[in-house]
């Protein structure tokens, strides 16, 4: 679906990512994890051409993103950004409708079909009851769901989530991840989650990418990637990955921090 080839990115002279190679498969939930400042948000921005790599390229179904217009990219890839402070009093419906922008011509209004897609996106994220409320009167968690609805209204093949659990109450964290996981299983949506919240995200990922020292440290299914050694190196924790019968999913058991490291 998305392929990253020999990608390097520098901010001014400081290297942020080096020689990243990565294949994101259609319909999978893939987590990009690492400590704060490791370059994972930068990687997310490169996947969407909000930043341009100095070396290497990102391919969407074989086409280099650099050769595509932002509008065309937005028809395939939707993003749920980390911060969503909005100070103007747009209604929730206004915001979700913006998800149809990449499909509409300059003076073209939303069609009945567009409205239906918008309604459906709001139903899925449980925000239909807020449809007429002003976005700047809502809580962080509610806003997050509005932005996810907007992303769904783009009818994307790939959805990129930047720290989706960061400002959310614990129940909403699950709600959001359950929703995208379900969309991936039922409709083949490709989900890329950038996060530092290892215990939370591990429960949803088919595969994981660990970023360490600006490079891909490991990539693969959680069982292969989350070895004790890797978790020590990347996160500075003593932890083990177990399969939890009660949850029916992988689970990271954190034993403690690594003494004497860093």
């Amino acid at each position, binding site marked *: 679906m998305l392929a990253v080839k020999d990608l390097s990115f520098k901010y001014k002279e400081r290297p942020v990512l080096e020689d990243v190679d990565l294949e994101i498969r259609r319909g999978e939930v893939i987590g990009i994890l690492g400590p704060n400042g490791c370059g994972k948000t930068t990687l997310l921005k490169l996947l*969407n051409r*909000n930043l341009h790599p100095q070396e290497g390229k990102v391919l969407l179904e074989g086409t280099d993103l650099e050769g595509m*217009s*932002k*509008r*065309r*990219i*937005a*028809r395939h890839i*939707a*993003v749920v*950004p980390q*911060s*969503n*402070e*909005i*100070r*103007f*009093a*747009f*209604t929730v419906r*206004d*915001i979700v409708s*913006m*998800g149809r*922008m*990449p499909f*509409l011509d*300059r*003076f073209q209004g939303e069609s009945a079909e567009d409205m239906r897609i918008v309604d459906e996106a709001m139903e899925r994220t449980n925000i239909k009851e807020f449809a*007429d*409320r*002003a976005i*700047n*009167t809502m809580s962080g968690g509610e806003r997050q769901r509005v932005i996810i609805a907007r992303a769904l209204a*783009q009818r994307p093949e790939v959805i990129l989530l930047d720290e989706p659990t960061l400002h959310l109450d614990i129940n909403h964290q699950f709600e959001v991840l359950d929703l995208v996981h379900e969309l991936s299983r039922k409709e083949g949506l490709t989900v890329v989650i950038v996060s530092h919240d290892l215990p939370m995200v591990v429960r949803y990922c088919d595969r994981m990418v660990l970023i360490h020292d600006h490079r891909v440290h490991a990539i693969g299914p959680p069982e292969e990637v989350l070895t004790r050694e890797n978790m020590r190196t990347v996160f500075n924790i003593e932890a083990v990955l177990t399969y939890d019968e009660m949850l029916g999913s992988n689970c990271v058991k954190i034993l403690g921090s690594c003494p004497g490291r860093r």
Partner: protein
Amino acid sequence: MDGAAKRKGRTPAVFAVLFLLLFVFMVLDLAQAFVPLTFGEAFWALLGKGTETHRIIIWEMNLPRVTMACLVGAGLGIAGAVMQAVFRNPMASPYILGLSSGASLGAAVGLTFTVTWLPQMLMIPLLAFVSCMATLFLVYYISNIGGRVPTETLLLAGIAVGSLLSALVSLLTYLAGEQMEGIVYWTMGNLTNATWENILIVAPLMVAGSLVMVSSSRELNAMMLGDAHALDLGVEVKRVRLQLLVASALVTAAAVAFVGVIGFVGLVVPHILRILMGPDNRMLLPASLLGGAAFLMICDYISRVIAPNIGILPIGIVTALIGAPYFIYLLRRRRTEVGWD
């Protein structure tokens, strides 16, 4: 109860009221003469009926002024709305950000010095535009901190640069000697010298600028959420922003070059409209065109009737006298609705 939906539902009524206001005050303003016409007389003369004298008063004496007021008001109104959206900052306007001062410096230079290779009538707007663009980029550059443009620095930069440029205009005025009176009168805003030739220059600039703005209103909506949001939704943010800023500067410069500095239209009009009908630029921008025209029409009418013994007040004084107190009221009372919190 949330007012967002209510505001949206109000949109058709707002447009109707704006049309009505514009029409009524247009006719009232047209009726102003040494011996004022009645509303009815002015209306019929506008349609080409009534007495010869009335038709001359309306068509030859007053219509150029009224047309110019409409164009300039509309241009400043929409430019204000666009700048507030582009900077994601409800305080932005051509006047507050020093653009008007920038344009007036260019125009004052054009008024003071003449060149042989270009008629003054074209030189003034050209210099106003160049100087206006330069001011815009200077203020933006000063207030840009790592890609963000915080309200405080934007305002302070606008005020500082604006003051500097105003001082330069004053200096020019002082040095200009016998042309001084003309420049002084012009810095207070002045519609009385509007001619059809001037309108012929202003109108295409206003129309072109406004078209660029209105046609980008959907992108502008996305940009109001933040650059990252807009990029994610497929907007080429840098290109659209540059287009919109150039269009705003063009419109401001055209207005300032021919009628002088008229403040507060671009600030007050979009604010009132945003409170009434919400922030959706697809509605707000056309409404700001209408509202700006209506506001300036009302101010021009007031400037003519308020002090009959003194004569006609410069319109810039009237817009500030009405605009500034209203703006202070907004600052105190309606913070959330206009996006200040």
